[in-house]
């Protein structure tokens, strides 16, 4: 049984086919990586998988539910969480509050309870705060428990987004280039974090240019090029696929530079 099923998905922007006739299945419990050069349509695909963009054609079925055409918050309600390549941190809040926002779906309450701050809500808020702090420690942000989000360095913000996404208790987590912009040490620490997510029962979709990271944690790899599927299969197979090497891994300085980022 697949957790996520994508059927003939397409997205056009004017004349550009950012994603074209793409189909794949993701079984539960894996780390499923999506790689491809810049502009291949990876971010667009994640935007489609979270309802931020509506597909031009095709279907998205998650956990047996057809979510095509739904709003982003409905995708979240079904258990899909994500992080962003262009950070979408709430900079007007503390780091802890950012993660608490992630607990929204479990915490939400009636307007009356919110306005009157019922004792029950006060207790729930307390628990929420504890749990958010716990998640921050889990992603390695123990030093930022009382920091304001707008005072945190880039690398910490990327982890903050992971903690916020985890706070939603997702079944599926989409990570858009989590290692981009991190220094080598920070990138190395990410391996363990991503690897441990499946242990928490979270299936991971990883979009990433850092091939060391991808090869280290992936069970399965999908290669995109110009919005289309170039190759797909277990990590070891894809790594040695001549098509992939030619289109992505092998050619030129740019790709080489990307690999070493």
């Amino acid at each position, binding site marked *: 049984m697949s957790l996520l099923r994508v059927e003939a998905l397409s997205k056009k922007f004017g004349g550009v086919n950012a994603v074209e006739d793409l189909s794949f299945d993701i079984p539960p419990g894996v780390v499923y990586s999506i790689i491809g050069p810049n502009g291949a349509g990876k971010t667009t695909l994640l*935007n489609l998988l979270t309802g931020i963009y509506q597909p031009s054609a095709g279907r998205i079925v998650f956990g047996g539910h057809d979510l095509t055409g739904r709003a982003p918050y409905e995708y979240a309600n079904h258990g899909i969480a994500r992080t*962003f390549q*262009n950070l979408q941190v709430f900079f007007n809040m503390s780091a802890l509050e950012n993660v608490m926002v992630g607990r929204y779906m479990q915490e939400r309450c009636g307007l009356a309870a919110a306005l009157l701050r019922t004792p029950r809500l006060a207790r729930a808020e307390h628990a929420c705060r504890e749990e958010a702090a716990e998640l921050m420690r889990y992603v390695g942000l123990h030093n930022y428990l009382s920091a304001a989000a707008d005072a945190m360095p880039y690398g910490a913000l990327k982890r903050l987004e992971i903690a916020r996404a985890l706070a939603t208790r997702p079944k599926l987590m989409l990570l858009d280039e989590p290692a981009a912009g991190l220094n080598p040490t920070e990138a190395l620490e990410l391996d363990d974090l991503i690897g441990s997510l499946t242990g928490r029962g979270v299936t991971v979709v990883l979009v990433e240019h850092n091939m060391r990271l991808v090869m280290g944690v992936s069970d399965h790899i999908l290669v995109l090029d110009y919005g289309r599927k170039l190759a797909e299969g277990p990590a070891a197979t894809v790594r040695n696929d001549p098509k992939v090497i030619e289109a992505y891994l092998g050619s030129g300085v740019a790709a080489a530079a990307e690999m070493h980022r």
Partner: protein
Amino acid sequence: MSAQFTQYLLTGLTVGAIYALVALGFSIIFNASNVINFAQGEFVMIGGMATVSLIAVGLPYLLAIPLAVAAAALVGLALEKFAVEPARGASVVTLIIITIGASIFLRGLATIIWDKRFHALKPFTGDAPITIAGATILPQSLWVLGVTLAVVLALSWFFGRTLLGKAMLATSHNRLAAQLAGINVRMVLFLSFGLSAALGAVAGILIAPITTTSYDVGVMLGLKGFAAAMLGGMGSGVGAVVGGIALGITETMSAGYLSSAYKDAIAFVIILAVLFFMPSGLFGKRGGERV
């Protein structure tokens, strides 16, 4: 076409031309700076009131009008220099409040320099109505239409053909790229306030002989011009003209055929209805930020 319909059409065109000029002022400043200048209506007021004063001291129209336009343009430049420029990077709401503060300031200043009374301005060339297809039109309305047309043509030449105009357009499309291409973006911003103010003043002078002028004529004209610019799609020159004319005609028609009591409300009902179906106006840019 009944004579009454023609009459409403002509009146609507005249009013619409004025809205178009004010809307163009909004759009030019918006393009250069992303600021909605709520003091735009005050330029209309300054144009009209200054002309009244200059005529009163005995100047002929030929001198009074350019002087009044220049005065408004100077105020526009000063507004940019002393109120908008120092607040660069502030939020949309903050900038809105700054320009509204400026409009209150200018209105207050007007009550001191001038007064709170209504002033009539003599029509440019007599007031004997001209009959067209059973409807009458004032010579002043012809002035309004003619000058507006000339201004629109001049602006399209300016933005299409001159280096400065092209620089201003480039800045509105992509500020950073314009800056990299060596355009002095700050100068563009500065000049756009002067140009918008001059446009507003022209509108104020043209309409004063028809509706009279006073220290607070700018309030409603400013809001309607804003509505016209929004209707066309803020930032679009064509949109401003089409929006202005469309607003003027619809307003006059519905005041004539439906209810004159709600004449001033019609512009806002239209704009709400349009925004309901087209959240970026008729000609506005679509699409939001990318994530």
